[in-house]
């Protein structure tokens, strides 16, 4: 290399903002990337793909196919072609078999089989139910974020009695089992709220579950935000902003808020995962989404009954697919959300533990 004025190429050494660094770290985490891809695919499948699938196979999620169940009410398994008619088959008195459908009825494909004695399309019910489950989970998380961030910021910023009141309150209620409280409240007050559908945008019962879960989980983001902002409250940049005359609101919005985004993003992904499990559990216990709205939890409840009305096990009509399919949907969604959340946590704040 020639001596003399050696200019260092500084473009490669340009300082990178924390978010750029985090993004680079995230890109290296293959599990998180695969999970993110799966989640995007899931969102597409559930919202846009469901009607497309309906168009492709020619029937909807609520169409009954009585020919998809045999005489013992055992539903057909995955990838079965069933006669496309909704007339209930009679039983031939000579052979004790189902009478065949009238000649000329076409066959339609049930990609994941039938969903029980009614013979509806399991995959379509899964997708439409996924809409409900995901809407509930994401909606509740957003609500919790909104309330939690606001209250946490206010508590940390203003301190004093506001802080002590909010902190005591969150400590107390966080200790209590959310599930029990949710159920107690759910039965008592959800009657009026569950019929609100926001002009058809949401299904029945979705809003009340969103409110219920959101109102009981906002304490976690509130704590996170509160401890973060407490540690930043007295820093120089906040003082500088105050000296320049920025209002409290502006300081909170512009200067303090960007610092809490990483921690909240990590919490949010894990919270959506927990809320999906919570929704499934509450619906199974009989207190969540009620029929005819489907959700992944109510698909499980359709097979096993609810706590108050358990369906007895019947070996001849039991199809393991009815349990496996919604459980697998819940499992893979929660798995990808967990992996993504852990990936985000590592990306924003790497430790050498891996």
């Amino acid at each position, binding site marked *: 290399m020639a001596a003399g004025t050696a200019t260092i190429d500084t473009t490669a050494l340009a300082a990178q903002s924390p978010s750029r660094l985090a993004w680079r770290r995230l890109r290296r985490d293959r599990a998180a990337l695969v999970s993110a891809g799966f989640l995007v695919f899931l969102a597409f499948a559930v919202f846009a793909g469901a009607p497309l699938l309906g168009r492709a196979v020619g029937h909807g999620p609520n169409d009954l196919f009585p020919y998809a169940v045999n005489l013992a009410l055992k539903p057909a398994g995955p990838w079965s072609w069933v006669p496309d008619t909704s007339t209930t088959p009679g039983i031939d008195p000579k052979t004790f078999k189902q009478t065949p459908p009238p000649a000329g009825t076409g066959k339609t494909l049930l990609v994941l089989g039938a969903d029980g004695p009614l013979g509806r399309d399991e995959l379509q019910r899964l997708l439409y139910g996924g809409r409900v489950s995901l809407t509930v989970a994401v909606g509740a998380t957003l609500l919790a974020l909104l309330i939690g961030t606001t209250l946490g910021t206010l508590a940390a910023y203003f301190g004093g009695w506001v802080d002590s009141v909010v902190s005591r309150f969150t*400590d*107390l209620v*966080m*200790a*209590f*089992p*959310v*599930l*029990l409280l949710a*159920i*107690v*409240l759910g*039965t*008592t*007050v959800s009657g009026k709220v569950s019929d609100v559908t926001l002009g058809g945008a949401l299904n029945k019962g979705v809003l009340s579950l969103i409110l219920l879960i959101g109102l009981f989980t906002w304490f*976690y983001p509130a*704590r*996170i935000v509160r*401890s973060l902002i407490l540690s930043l409250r007295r820093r120089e940049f906040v003082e500088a902003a105050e000296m320049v005359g920025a209002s409290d609101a502006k300081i909170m919005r512009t200067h303090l808020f960007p610092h809490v985004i990483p*921690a909240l993003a*990590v*919490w949010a992904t*894990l919270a959506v*995962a927990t809320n999906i*499990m919570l929704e*499934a*559990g509450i619906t*199974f*216990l*009989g207190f969540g989404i009620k029929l005819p709205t489907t959700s992944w939890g109510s698909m*499980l409840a359709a097979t*096993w009954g609810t*706590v*108050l009305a358990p369906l007895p*096990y019947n070996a001849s009509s039991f199809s393991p697919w009815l*349990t496996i399919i919604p*459980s697998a949907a*819940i*499992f893979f969604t*929660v*798995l990808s959300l*967990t*992996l993504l*959340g*852990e990936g985000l946590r590592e990306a924003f704040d790497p430790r050498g*533990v*891996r």
Partner: protein
Amino acid sequence: MLLVLTLLTFALYRAIPANPAGFLVDLSPGHVPKPAEIARARKALGVDKPIWEQYGLYLWRLAHGDLGIAYEGTSFVPLTDERVGQPVGPTVVHAAMVTGSVVLGGALFALLLSIPLGAIAASRPRSLTDRTILVVTLVGICTHPLVVALLLQQFPGRQWGLAPPGNYCPFFGSAPTTADPLSGRHLVGCAGPGAWASHLVLPWITFALFFLAIYTRLVRVRMIEVMDEPFIRTAAAKGASRRRIVRHHALRNAMGPVLTLVGMDVGLALGIALYIESVYRLPGLGLTTLGALSGGTGYDLPMILGVVLVIGVVIVVANFLIDLIILWMDPRAAQAGTRRSAVGRIA
């Protein structure tokens, strides 16, 4: 906090349009209750007084240890206007013991297994054992305990007959028949420590699976952190065997956050216990609440209040005990006040 809880429950009860007179009035079809009967029923139930008076009376009786008489199954003492029925106190205490046996047994199971597993994973980081344990625990977190409970009950329970699929057997003595809190049916009794344990095996496994996953990961992370500390190196330099290092030095120091998490998880544990009780039909706090909430004739207020109170007491006591244990294990925690600053789960 307990006061707030009772106030909240009372206020909620006020908000719902429930008429508890249905519990005492004859509602058989074809019989329309007369206003006088309804008034008598309401007087006996104590709901004809204004809500503040009811609340005050409740607190007064509570101070004397009387949790009231449940609405469900109550009836008039003949020829008077008093009512008798199932006293809430003993029922709720029994339910608490059932839930307690599930939770404590399961938690013990989970801790006993997760500590060695976490230590093994930590001692061979990034090896096949470590990766397998990580994957298995990840699966354990993401599977809904409800699904696990249903599958365990169905297959090892009913079909393969490895363990009884449900019902609770009291530990002491012989309780011939108990009533299922939801349907009121009487269940055939069983009793004794052996039956108690065998009926609880499946619930314990279900409970433990979920927490096993979380605690194993936590122990693993903590052990890896602790093994890097200088005092571990000093112990090795002094010639301590690996076993002694792990057991005597590392584990002790790694346990702090684990216990904190255990303390914070009491609420979560009660929620999971609810799923387990409902699937395996154990008459614990969860099922009792569900029964009180969903009775055909209305909401059983004294029972709900009793359960809420007991849960509150349990949580307060549990947190207190955990604080004591943490203090015993690491006296420095007294100054730091570290427990309250934990911010979020380590899934």
